[in-house]
């Protein structure tokens, strides 16, 4: 019987509307409980207590992440740390090794992370990296938006077959949710082409991004999966793309969430910062964060994560193959591309968001504006689309900017083209400073609800998993901006499902890390099974029998979420 009592902390838990009250939190056998008999007592007086945080979108495990690691030795230069006690050696800044990834999330109070894009054919690779990432629970989103089965079924509006295929693929890849990346555009990239608008036809397949997105919303709700579709829309990163984004978000209108996981949204649009740009070219580049945030505020059935730009040298990576080619044409830095048969593609390019470059400054402003214009922080989540807009290790710095206007003003002053950044954005006029309650919504309660995991994560209600973070941060005191960043960079204490991971700032355990996946049951569907068999015979280069991820050597500690979608 392992029992802990965290006493006298300032507790922030939106799931219970607890807003900084001084309360005790009790842990027993991995769960939050009302009271405990003989606990080990931790005095959190003057400290901030929250549930463990969730990252709803980060590229932390899998083929393109590893391309990034392998092709950027310079990203490791002078930042490696040696093995210490039971802790493995760490390395890498923008694309850290799996061990540093687990440790770094834990240090910030994060206990659950979702790998944002899993190419199904590479599922084994993704799971091997997840296995070697200590402490944090992880799930992975297989990509569907350019998958030949999906394109062919949806061309004929076959929702039930699409759903049956999704159910099969989630099971054989041990996947968590339905991810779309540049729907249709990445298949077009197979021929060096793209789909920039939701109405652009996909070469050969005679379907549009619009039809793919709506069809997958319908299939996702047919299955009643925990998470909604997780969408990276078309036309990412281009001046004037906010209209494409609004066209994309509108596709969710009229759909209602159907699931048993307490999820209300039918579409999660990810790293929306990259999709909220005005202007016609880089010269007149401007923020359209207000337009996008206002629409999201009105539309209760969609959620977003931001993808804050952190102004670092980082490594961009996405299944949006054509975008990465576009990027390497712009910055002339090394380019990796990885097209995947029948399924998807990926690209990787290093990128420097320089405070000396006006566009980087505006991108920084767009991210912060999206959050600061958002009215419902349960539907607006903190991400950097790691590592695309910046490494996840910068979350505390982002919090500093979100919680302190002073911090924002200091950064604005530091820009070389400060005036132009101000004139092309609204960031300088915003005086909103996020509260810790709102931070807990953005990083805990919100993502947990949208992922359909609020029965496990995101709060401190008795019965939830005992993922608890204690920060050395007194909300009643005044803080200099950098003190905010410092406090959230390194938890004082952390529990993962009741196991002490960090005490007095030191990592003492690798915990009991789990791999989350969703196993939907659907009616027998002989046609889809025939189609699968046929495609493996004719077009795949691995056999059907060699496709499914099985065995402890890939997933030593699975946590399966069963969904019954039989009719």
């Amino acid at each position: 019987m392992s029992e802990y009592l965290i006493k006298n902390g300032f507790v922030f838990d939106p799931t219970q509307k607890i807003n900084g009250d001084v309360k005790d939190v009790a842990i027993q056998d991995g769960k939050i409980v009302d009271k405990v008999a003989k606990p080990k007592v931790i005095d959190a007086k003057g400290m901030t207590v929250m549930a463990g945080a969730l990252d709803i979108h980060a590229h932390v495990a899998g083929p393109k992440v590893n391309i990034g690691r392998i092709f950027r030795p310079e990203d490791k230069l002078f930042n490696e740390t040696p093995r210490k006690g039971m802790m493995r050696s760490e390395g890498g800044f923008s694309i850290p090794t799996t061990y540093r990834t687990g440790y770094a999330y834990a240090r910030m109070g994060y206990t659950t992370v979702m790998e944002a894009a899993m190419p199904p054919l590479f599922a084994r690779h993704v799971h091997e990296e997840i296995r070697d990432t200590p402490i944090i629970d992880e799930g992975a989103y297989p990509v569907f938006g350019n998958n030949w089965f999906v394109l062919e079924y949806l061309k004929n509006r076959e929702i039930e077959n699409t759903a049956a295929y999704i159910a099969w693929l989630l099971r054989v890849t041990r996947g968590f949710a339905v991810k779309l990346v540049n729907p249709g555009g990445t298949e077009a990239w197979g021929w060096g082409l793209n789909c920039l608008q939701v109405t652009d036809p996909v070469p050969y397949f005679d379907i549009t991004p619009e039809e793919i997105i709506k069809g997958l919303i319908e299939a996702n709700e047919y299955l009643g999966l925990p998470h909604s579709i997780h969408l990276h829309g078309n036309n990412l990163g281009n001046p004037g793309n906010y209209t494409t984004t609004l066209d994309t978000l509108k596709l969710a209108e009229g759909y209602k969430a159907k699931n048993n996981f307490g999820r209300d949204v039918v579409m999660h649009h990810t790293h929306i910062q990259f999709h909220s740009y005005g202007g016609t070219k880089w010269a007149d580049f401007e923020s359209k964060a207000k337009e996008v945030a206002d629409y999201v505020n009105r539309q209760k059935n969609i959620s977003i994560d931001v993808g804050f730009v952190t102004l670092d040298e980082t490594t961009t990576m996405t299944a949006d193959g054509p975008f990465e080619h576009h990027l390497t044409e712009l910055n002339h830095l090394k380019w990796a591309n990885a097209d995947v048969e029948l399924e998807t593609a990926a690209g990787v390019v290093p990128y420097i968001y320089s405070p000396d470059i006006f566009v980087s400054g505006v991108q920084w402003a767009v991210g912060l504006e999206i959050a600061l214009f958002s009215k419902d922080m349960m539907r607006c989540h903190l991400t950097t689309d790691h590592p695309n807009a910046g490494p996840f290790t910068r979350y505390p710095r982002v919090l500093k900017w979100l919680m302190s206007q002073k911090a924002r003003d200091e950064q604005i002053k530091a820009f070389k083209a400060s005036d132009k950044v101000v004139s092309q954005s609204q960031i300088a006029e915003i005086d909103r400073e996020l509260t810790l309650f709102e931070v807990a919504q953005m990083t805990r309660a919100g993502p947990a609800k949208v992922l359909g995991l609020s029965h496990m994560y995101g709060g401190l209600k008795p019965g939830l998993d005992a993922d608890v973070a204690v920060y050395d941060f007194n909300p009643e005191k005044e803080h200099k901006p950098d003190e905010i960043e410092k406090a959230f960079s390194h938890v004082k204490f952390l529990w993962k499902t009741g196991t002490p991971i960090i005490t007095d700032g030191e990592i003492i355990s690798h915990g009991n890390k789990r791999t989350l996946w969703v196993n939907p049951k659907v009616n027998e569907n002989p046609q889809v099974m025939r189609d699968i068999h046929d495609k493996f015979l004719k077009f795949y280069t691995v056999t059907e029998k060699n496709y499914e991820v099985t065995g402890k050597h890939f997933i030593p500690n699975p946590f399966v979420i069963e969904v019954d979608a039989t009719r």
Partner: protein
Amino acid sequence: MQTVTLIPIAQPGLRLEVDNISPDKFAGKTAEQIAALHVYEGNTQHTMGKFFRVEGESGATAADTRIVIKGDATRLKYIGMRMTAGEILVENSTDMYTGAWMQGGKIHVKGNVDAFAATGMKGGELLIDGNAGNYLGAAYRGDWRGMQSGTIRVAGNVGSDMGYFMNGGTIIVGGNADVHVATHAEGNGKIIIKGSAKSKVGGQMVGGEIYIFGGVDVMMPTYVYRRDVDLEVDGTKAKFALFEGDTAERHPKRKGEVVYGKLYLKY
């Protein structure tokens, strides 16, 4: 300027990593404190004192600290790594990474240096009386930012891949160069070879200048003869044939003019 002298009293079984031999690390330390600094032989951490007798005093800052290494230094890696100021004099030859990532100050090696000397050099001066190994003044693996600034002078010959991804600074070679000179160079670095070069000279070069006095055995096919020019190069007045390339690469425009890598061959 104060001088610290290191006299080898023992040789390591493996190569010895002496990144702590740098004016920045020695500054403000007594001989005893310097002798207590760490050096690494594989997985084993030793004190400097185990391999060197330390004599003299360091200055208060790197700038007024001078280090003299006597005796056999051929198994010492990383001498002067990342130094920002001050001086190092090596009376014989050194192993790899001499002056790697140095930012300022001066290193003078009276013998030869092995590969990767002045990797990612940002500034300062590296003087080599003997020969230099491969990858002199080159970028670290994967980095597109090679030698940025500073000066390297080699009296003898250099190995392959000199000035790999060079962005700035000057390298002057008294003798001959092995294959691949200034590959991927961009910006305005300058390489002068008083002897001859082999093949693959200026391959994939976007910008910068190469001057060769003694000829090239096989020219890159992607260099185009432009014209003859009279120049004074490091004290030598002569007529040079100007070639531009690498025509396979993209080339930026400056004031409407396309900027090429320039290869000057002395007649």
